[in-house]
């Protein structure tokens, strides 16, 4: 924001920074070419998309906070805050190198540690813009888990898990496909445009393992073993969070084009239609099941539609998007009820939304892709045979197994060392006071009376000296 008289100097600045980042190919000269401008545009577009994806952190935090209980609300906000922070540093330090560094046997990457030498750069994007988009994705994968483990997990254990998934598990999965690993070199390469599997199913499967290792919340199952409703404490948070996630998804999907080209509009359209169809389908499904259009389920349905379209967003038609979204909306309702019944307590439906619909959406590419392209083959329903479908199933299965095993071992290891779950007393009282020192809602909001300070208990009526006006 320096006052400059000549634009060319800003160009020089750009060039300087570019060289700092080890790349000078598109440096701006005084004579600027259309290619240079397109490159700048690509970078701006992907940076804005990354910001939208980062905004999704707020959406996740609100959905999870809204659908759980007031007594642990500060804890869940903190977990979402720290997911992003721990995720960003871990992905910067090692995750990015593992995901996108030079390939070792198709399994892991191995260059660009700490964004240093050999750090990956995509197309016209600079290294830092490539990184910022990817780090936003890593934080998303991590944050999915916190909802499923809500209201009963030790904060320090969660924090540790969060570092490992962002720095290790997620990067390996990403390497297999986007990082040039074995899934991308199948004869018909696995196709997951924006991460139905890479991001969402990875998060969802880790969430499943976490919820299983933890066990259900106290009081979630009666002595007869049947599930009990533990109602949401704040539906407005949950719906606001869902809207924010919808908005963020316009960074998530169109941004994954990684260039400001003609495809981004179509991607935004399939994203919109699937979201809408998902919410409506889930609303109808739960309406039929329990006689009322449940709000939390409808919100889950929108997210299910979005997760479902994420893999095929660039490959399917508008009608295909609606069908995928609607199916995901139905599936998420069935999945939520199913996990409830088999005693896996997922307070926010993360396993169903991200895990189940992530897998479903990925497989849908093999069914609904409209025609062959450089990146995918036409799907079964469009006469393309089963080539793509088989690759999709392989990818889903491989990632599912890998994440289930690694995340499962991680949670078991934590459980048998520092412990994963808080004490019964703490869980009954809520995590906020025990884990973080104070409740998430003050004494003037929840029905607890005003606290007494340790130091002095008669001060309420004391008037400070400066208090006149």
């Amino acid at each position, binding site marked *: 924001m320096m006052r400059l008289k000549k634009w060319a100097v800003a160009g020089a600045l750009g060039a300087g920074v570019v060289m700092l980042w080890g790349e000078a190919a598109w440096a701006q000269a005084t004579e600027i070419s259309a290619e240079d401008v397109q490159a700048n545009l690509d970078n701006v577009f992907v940076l804005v998309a990354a910001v939208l994806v980062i905004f999704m952190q707020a959406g996740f935090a609100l959905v999870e906070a809204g659908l759980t209980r007031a007594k642990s609300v500060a804890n869940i906000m903190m977990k979402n805050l720290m997911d992003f922070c721990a995720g960003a540093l871990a992905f910067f330090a090692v995750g990015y190198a593992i995901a996108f560094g030079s390939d070792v046997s198709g399994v892991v990457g191995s260059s660009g540690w700490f964004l240093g030498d050999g750090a990956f750069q995509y197309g016209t994007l600079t290294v830092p813009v490539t990184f910022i988009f990817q780090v936003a994705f890593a934080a998303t994968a991590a944050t999915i888990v916190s909802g499923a483990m809500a209201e009963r997990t030790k904060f320090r254990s969660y924090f540790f898990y969060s570092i490992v998934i962002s720095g290790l598990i997620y990067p390996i999965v990403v390497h297999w496909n986007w990082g040039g690993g074995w899934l991308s070199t199948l004869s018909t390469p696995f196709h997951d445009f924006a991460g139905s599997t890479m991001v969402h199913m990875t998060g969802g499967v880790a969430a499943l393992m976490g919820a299983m290792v933890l066990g259900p919340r106290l009081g979630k199952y009666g002595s007869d073993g049947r*599930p*009990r*409703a533990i*109602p*949401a404490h704040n539906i407005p948070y949950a719906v606001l969070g869902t809207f924010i996630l919808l908005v963020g998804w316009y960074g998530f999907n169109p941004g994954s084009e990684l260039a400001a080209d003609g495809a981004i509009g179509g991607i935004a359209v399939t994203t919109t239609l699937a979201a809408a169809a998902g919410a409506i389908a889930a609303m109808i499904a*739960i309406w039929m*099941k*329990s*006689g*009322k259009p*449940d709000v*939390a*389920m409808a919100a889950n349905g929108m997210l299910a539609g979005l997760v479902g379209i994420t893999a095929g967003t660039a490959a399917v038609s508008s009608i295909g998007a609606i069908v995928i979204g609607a199916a995901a909306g139905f599936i998420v*309702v069935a999945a*939520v*009820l199913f996990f*409830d019944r088999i005693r896996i307590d997922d307070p926010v*439906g993360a396993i169903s939304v991200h895990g189940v619909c992530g897998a479903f959406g990925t497989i849908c590419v093999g069914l609904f892709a409209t025609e062959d392209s450089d990146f995918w083959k036409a799907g079964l329903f469009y006469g393309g045979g089963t080539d793509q479908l088989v690759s999709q199933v392989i990818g889903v299965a491989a990632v599912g197994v890998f994440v289930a095993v690694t995340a499962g071992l991680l949670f078991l290891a934590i459980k048998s060392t520092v412990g994963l779950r808080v004490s019964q007393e703490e869980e009954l009282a809520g995590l906020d006071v025990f884990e973080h020192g104070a409740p998430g809602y003050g004494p003037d909001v929840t029905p607890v009376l005003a606290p007494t300070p340790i130091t002095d208990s008669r001060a309420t009526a004391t008037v400070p000296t400066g208090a006149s006006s």
Partner: protein
Amino acid sequence: MIKLVTAVIKPHMLEPVKEGLKSAGVQGVTVTEVNGFGRQGGHTETYRGAEYSVDLIPKLKVEVLCSIDDAERIVDVMRKCAHTGKIGDGKVWVVDVDRLMRVRTGEMGDDAV
């Protein structure tokens, strides 16, 4: 002697009860949000496909301290003003008060009402 008249009523009947008590010359009332469980039963709610029953229903508790002579009249007012005729209208009861004092003045008994 002083009596404490307590009523548990439906929340939306507070306005009529307050009006009734005012007309009857009552100058002070203490109101508490309570939850009642009774013949009225509760209702069923559903959340994410699971049913659960809510059997505690929001009610208000209205307490009036009065002199023994007014107690009968106040019970009557409660009865009339809180009445809808539908189940769940609540109860009114009277308890003897041993001593009563107004904090501000230290007045005791009937003077403190």
